[in-house]
């Protein structure tokens, strides 16, 4: 059972902040105080596109991920979902921009 369903809508957790780096990006979750790394710029594009895309699969395709690469990206997104960096969003919230707002 994969950690992330490619055909559902996903988004970054609102407490996650993204910092682009030459190799990809660093993600930090203020709630869990966990760091994660995106070691690849395409993955960063996918992650950034999630909130606007109807499904995770659509975000991958929009970032130029090929069919053969899809399973790899599914796994990577799954890792992020497992550590709560990504959360499933209700379809109605598709228009909401990704927020790095903190509720402090």
């Amino acid at each position, binding site marked *: 059972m994969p950690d992330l369903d490619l055909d559902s809508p996903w988004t970054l957790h609102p407490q996650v902040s993204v*910092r682009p780096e030459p*190799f990809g990006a660093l993600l930090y979750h203020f709630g869990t105080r966990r760091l994660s790394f995106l*070691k690849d710029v395409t993955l960063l594009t996918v992650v950034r596109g999630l909130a606007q895309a109807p499904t995770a699969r659509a975000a991958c395709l929009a970032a130029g991920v090929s069919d053969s690469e899809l399973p790899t990206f599914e796994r990577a997104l799954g890792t992020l979902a497992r550590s709560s960096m990504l959360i499933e969003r209700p379809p109605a919230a598709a228009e909401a921009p990704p927020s790095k707002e903190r509720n402090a």
Partner: protein
Amino acid sequence: MTMLDMKPADTPAAARLVDLFELGLDAPICLTWELTYACNLSCSHCLSSSGRRDPRELSTEECKAVIDELQRMQVFYVNIGGGEPTVRSDFWEIVDYATAHDVGVKFSTNGVKITPEIAQRLAKSSYVDVQISLDGATAEVNDAVRGPGSYATAIRAMQNLSDAGYRGFKISVVCTRQNLSQLDEFKAIADRYGAQLRLTRLRPSGRGADVWDDLHPLPEQQRGLYDWLVAHGEGVLTGDSFFHLSAYGNALPGLNLCGAGRVVCLIDPIGDVYACPFAIHENFLAGNVRSPGGFREVWQHSDLFLELRNPQTGGACTKCQFFDSCRGGCMAAKFFTGLPLDGPDPECVRGFGEDALRDRSGDALPKPDGDHSHLTSPPRPRTNKPVPITLTMRRPDRAPVSACAEDPLSGFHTA
């Protein structure tokens, strides 16, 4: 590497993190900020030789300006320490300012100011993480290093945090020859107060250099520590301190590289920026946040940090079968024990460090910069020992070309 507790996500690219980080990052991910050299205690192994405040310490406004810069650079959080940071009268103002500006705070304290009221306040904020220092699971072992009454102070702080409903604060233990037999007791204390145990390595930095010979773990204790860490997995944090022990078997969780100047750095109380909190010495001083361009300029453009980010190849450790995970160990530990920076760590699990220590020339060991110890501190071991006479003034600031040359400082010259 120090103080970095993190979990890389398994992402598709082939590059290993260690290779990416070797080139440095646009901003540090593990920034230690010591707010003051003032401290109510005089721990014998203090990495920053703290005790007395330095009159040049950053003002409240200067601290806020640093935070503004960190926010712009997207430094997610700072590890605040000292000295005892909470003795600054503006400590809570600085913490509040940081968290209001997207900079999370994790602060280390001996617990002196963690009253029930403060504990309540801390329990309410998810952006402030607390780390209580404890170097013995019993008062006897703890107080021998941290001073009389310090065990009771730490336990009271933990009780207050626990009573306030704060879960998951950290108990930070510097592992020594005296306390390594107490690992299970430390774990029990952490469990009792709903805290998480964090074990770190004793390094010969600051006053730690004076007591390192007597306090650093014996080889068989290192082995026991490694096995204990493997058995406890990610439930116990290490701040990536023990990557030199990876050579016993599998790599421990973490980055497994010396991050000095690449992902780690220190801002000291007077605004000086060093490559690592364990390397307070002019050789590792990159600049000052008060100079034009501020912290960003130092991090991104200082000669020292650029030098540290030059990948190095070749050398004896690189031929070691364990080099991939051990990488020659800790730069600061080598430096302050007078060992070449591109050679094995003094606590090399293969015993090469002990050999190197034995063969060391009689030159003076490098002294950390700025001793802020209380003038009334208990006499330090150094004063009880014969003082070695120094005939030459070789400063080990240049690394001979050999051994762990992938160490960031190999071939590095300050002059």
